[in-house]
């Protein structure tokens, strides 16, 4: 069953004459890890903000767990179901102590104190920040702050975790920490994860990859399926993984390699196999071997 459903959603910001979303149809399955890729201005953040009713569609409908997000009476139900992590970790941490920040959402929901304590401890353990529970957030690194922000959202026990470019302000180390944390959340706790990003390499581990362009969905499928459409990705100004790039370039030189390999090892194997079978490549190698002698 799909937990989030977009039905022909249109959206334009009040002071803009251009549609930021034009006719988006999208269903997100419960328990899946969906990455949304697109460059700046493609509408990917706008899409994310529709998932917990921060923005409401100007046309069409968005349903979260069967609830229409435009239904003001059930706004809290929507927000409780879909947690959102934002780009700048500093601007979403509300307290001066890590554990008090994580407790903010369950406190808002009126959860009994003992249960808040349990939720906070378990959320902090999940993101690996339990030892830092008494620390002041402004003394943590960017990746750590963003993990605290994630803990603050999962303490709410949402069914979906939407991350709106959570790694845009982080260094490579922090980026890896955050992506590893959300991947683990999806695989181990079965939480639905929607990761909005413009870093191609963060999408490789996802179950599904959606490419946004000019407010429309340009491609949708497994990362392998999407990345193998190399020309389309180039048109959108997006990178493809190096393995796909290598195979694509080799194919131009007369090979016929599959384009949906995203890991280095299987790619190396495929290239080796192809080179054994290819007469042109064998001839070239023999020639080089002779020269060496």
């Amino acid at each position, binding site marked *: 069953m799909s937990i989030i459903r977009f039905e022909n959603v249109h959206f334009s910001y009040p002071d803009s004459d251009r549609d930021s979303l034009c006719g988006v149809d999208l269903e997100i399955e419960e328990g899946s890890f969906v990455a949304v890729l697109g460059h700046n201005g493609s509408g990917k953040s706008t899409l994310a903000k529709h998932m917990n009713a*921060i923005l409401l569609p100007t046309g069409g409908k968005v349903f979260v767990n069967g609830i229409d997000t435009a239904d003001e009476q059930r706004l809290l139900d929507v927000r409780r179901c879909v947690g959102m992590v934002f780009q700048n970790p500093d601007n979403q941490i509300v307290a*001066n102590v890590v554990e008090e920040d994580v407790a*903010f959402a369950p406190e808002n*929901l009126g959860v009994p104190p003992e249960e808040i*304590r349990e939720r906070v401890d378990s959320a902090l353990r999940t993101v690996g920040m339990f030892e830092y529970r008494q620390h002041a957030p402004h003394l943590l690194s960017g990746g750590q702050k963003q993990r605290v922000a994630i803990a603050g959202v999962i303490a709410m026990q949402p069914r979906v975790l939407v991350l709106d470019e959570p790694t845009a302000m982080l260094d490579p180390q922090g980026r890896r920490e955050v992506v590893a944390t959300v991947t683990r959340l999806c695989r181990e706790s079965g939480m639905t994860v929607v990761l909005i990003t413009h870093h191609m390499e963060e999408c490789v581990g996802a179950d599904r990859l959606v490419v946004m362009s000019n407010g429309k969905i340009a491609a949708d499928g497994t990362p392998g399926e999407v990345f193998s459409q190399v020309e389309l990705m180039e048109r959108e100004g997006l990178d493809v993984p190096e393995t796909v790039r290598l195979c694509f370039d080799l194919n131009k030189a007369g090979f016929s390699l599959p384009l949906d390999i995203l890991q280095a090892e299987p790619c190396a194997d495929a290239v080796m196999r192809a080179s054994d079978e290819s007469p042109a490549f064998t001839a070239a190698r023999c020639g080089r071997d002779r020269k060496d002698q």
Partner: protein
Amino acid sequence: MLKDITLGQYFPGDTVAHRLDPRTKLILVFLYIVALFQASGWAGYALVLAATVACMAVSHISPRSIFKGLKPMLFIIALTALLNIFYTTGRPIVPGWIITWEGIERAVKMMLRITLLIAGTFLLTYTTSPMELTDGLELLMNPLKKLRVPVHEMTIMMSMALRFIPTLIEETDKIMSAQKARGADFETGNLLQRARALLPILVPLFVSAFRRADELAVAMESRCYHGGEGRTRMKQLSMERRDAIAFACGLLLLAAVIVLKHWRL
């Protein structure tokens, strides 16, 4: 230089002073201030000073951090002392001089009073997290809700302001470095020129503060914040035996100071 400001900062710890109920601490600070202003003789001041030092020892707050917080106030303290030295009539130290023994005594007492006043309030903010502090304030001011005073809104605004002090200080540092790199000069010139040089810092700082506020509001709403209604707290405040003891100590201090004043000590 901006990093030195410790006003409103919390040092996490696990001492008796940290564990006291924030309401107790707020009332204690109130009693402390009353006692401080009741003190008139040297014995009274000595007693309040001793109480302050004892509190510092109990809460493991080093005198250094208190003095660091006092730094921005030095000017006011010095000015008060000077005014008291020159404008108090009495016995001159050297015949014909304007400086009197009474003036010196009053100046020292005023300096002591302001220093102790600041030290006492610092002890509160150093040992109480802003969240606890605002919780305590909210509960103490709860009766005012009946008079439609927006107590919850006021306290959450206060805690947000305290939360963003370090962030904004960091930001100011960054903007200053950026402007310096482009040749801005904050150190030379007369007062007016220096004040004008601050403008290129204040404008971007304000712009970014507004942007932050906007993002923070969205993030809070995303975490189901909908005002104080139906809100629970993780840390339940409860009065323990230590709070009763602390109250007793506070009242004892106030009583002792008043008695000493009565005896003109």
